[in-house]
Each structure stands twice: as structure tokens, then as C-alpha cells.
């Protein structure tokens, strides 16, 4: 790490928030899968995928693997938009038909991307946008430096 240029200050906050979200999503989805996978297999699997992607994105931001960061953060934005919409308008597609609206995000079947990340104060929706803006700014700065 010491040979790398230091991360810009605000980017460290991004890494910290990503780390918290990664830990939260990993812990919750791991527990749900071990405890009650049968109740909502699609939702819990998606949640596990989200958790892995958050871990990768955290590492990519911290170690400046820019390409990995673009892919993982872009995937997250896509995921939260698609899953957020599905949980709102077509819950039966991900096996949550009988789950009341708010419980899809905050109840025992609640997952990280459900209802656009409502169970996580919509951080999963806002964070990838900030992440992509940060990466875009870095790319422009690099282009200017060249």
C-alpha cells in the first residue's frame, strides 16, 4: 500500500461506506441462506450476489483496480434498479408474492436491493451513483494528465 499514491480524501469515505455495506449484506444474506433459504430462494441468492459484489467493489476502490470498480459498481446500480423495480411491481417474479410490501425490504425476507435498498436507508441506490461519478472524475483527471 505504501508505494501507491494515497487515495483522495473523500474516496476514503466511499471505501468506508462500501465496507460497511459489504459487511452488512454479507452477514445478513449468509444468515438468511443458512437459516431459511427455502422461504425466498431467489431473493436470498440475489442478496448473496449483491454481497459478493459489494466486497469486490470495496477492494477495487481501496486498491484502485479501476476496471473492476467500474464493472462492480455499474453492476450494483443495475441490480438495485432492476431488483428494486421487481420488488415493487412484480414480486412474484422473485418469489416474494405473499410478502407484504415493506417486509420485502425490512422483514425476514428483506434483502439489500429490495425496494431500492429501503432497508438500508436507500444507501444501495445512492452509493453506486456517487461511486460512478467519482470514477468518472478520476478518468477525466487522468486524461488531462496524459
Amino acid at each position, binding site marked *: 500500500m505504501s508505494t501507491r499514491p494515497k487515495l483522495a480524501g473523500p474516496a*476514503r*469515505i466511499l471505501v468506508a461506506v462500501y465496507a460497511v455495506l459489504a459487511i452488512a449484506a454479507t*452477514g445478513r444474506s449468509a444468515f438468511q441462506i443458512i437459516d431459511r433459504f427455502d422461504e425466498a430462494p431467489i431473493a436470498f441468492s440475489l442478496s448473496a450476489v449483491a454481497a459478493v459484489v459489494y466486497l469486490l467493489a470495496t477492494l477495487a476502490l481501496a486498491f484502485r483496480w479501476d476496471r473492476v470498480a467500474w464493472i462492480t459498481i455499474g453492476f450494483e446500480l443495475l441490480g438495485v434498479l432492476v431488483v428494486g423495480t421487481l420488488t415493487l411491481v412484480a414480486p412474484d417474479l422473485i418469489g416474494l408474492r405473499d410478502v407484504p410490501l415493506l417486509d420485502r425490504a425490512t422483514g*425476514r425476507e428483506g434483502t439489500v436491493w429490495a425496494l431500492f435498498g429501503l432497508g438500508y436507508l436507500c444507501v444501495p441506490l445512492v452509493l453506486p451513483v456517487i461511486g460512478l461519478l467519482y470514477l468518472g472524475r478520476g478518468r477525466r483527471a487522468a486524461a488531462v494528465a496524459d
Partner: protein
Amino acid sequence: MIDVFTVILIGASTLAGVIAVVLGLLGRKPSDVTVISLVIVELLLIAQVVIAIAAPFTGNPPTGNLGEFWIYLATACLMPPAAIAWALTDRSRWSTVVLGVGALAIAVMAYRMNQIWNIQLA
């Protein structure tokens, strides 16, 4: 969980979080105030551990899943040490914000723990 203590835990971690985020954005490096406020949150979390161990034996069992509750509580207990370690190794204003983010995350987790203990059905 005990309602009054839950309010104290959520209130203290929210307060510690807001103070650290504001001081960090104002450009302050991690200080005694911000680091000690995280230590206080950690002490409250340890008290919560004792309460959570004792409560089921005193006629106050969780309505939701006890394992899920403990994952939240154990993770929450790890956050102040991690945030403080960050603050000790990176002496910049952004570490102060990280301390705040950690404390605010604990407030949210405490809210979820309360939901699992009192509202969620197993």
C-alpha cells in the same frame, strides 16, 4: 433487549456519528472527543451484549430469530475498534468522518436488533 437502553444506545451512537461527521467535514482530525465518543458507543454495545445474554433468562425472550440478532450485535461490536484503528493509522479529517459513519451504522443496526427482538416473528 430493554427499551430504555435501546433508546440510549441508538441516541448515543447517532449523536457520536453526527458529531464526528460534522467535525470531519469541518476539517478536524480525529481527536479525543471523536475517538472517546466511539469508545463510549463500544462500552454501550458491550453492556448490550450482557443484556442480550441475560434477558431471555429473565422472561424477556426475543420474538424474532436470536441467531440473526447476534450477527448484528457481534458485527456492531467490531465496528468501533475498526473505525478507531482507521483513525489511528490515517490522521486526516476523513478518518473523523469514518468514525462518524461507523457510529451511524451502529445506530441503524441497533434499530434492526430492536426490530428482531420485539417485532419480527420467528
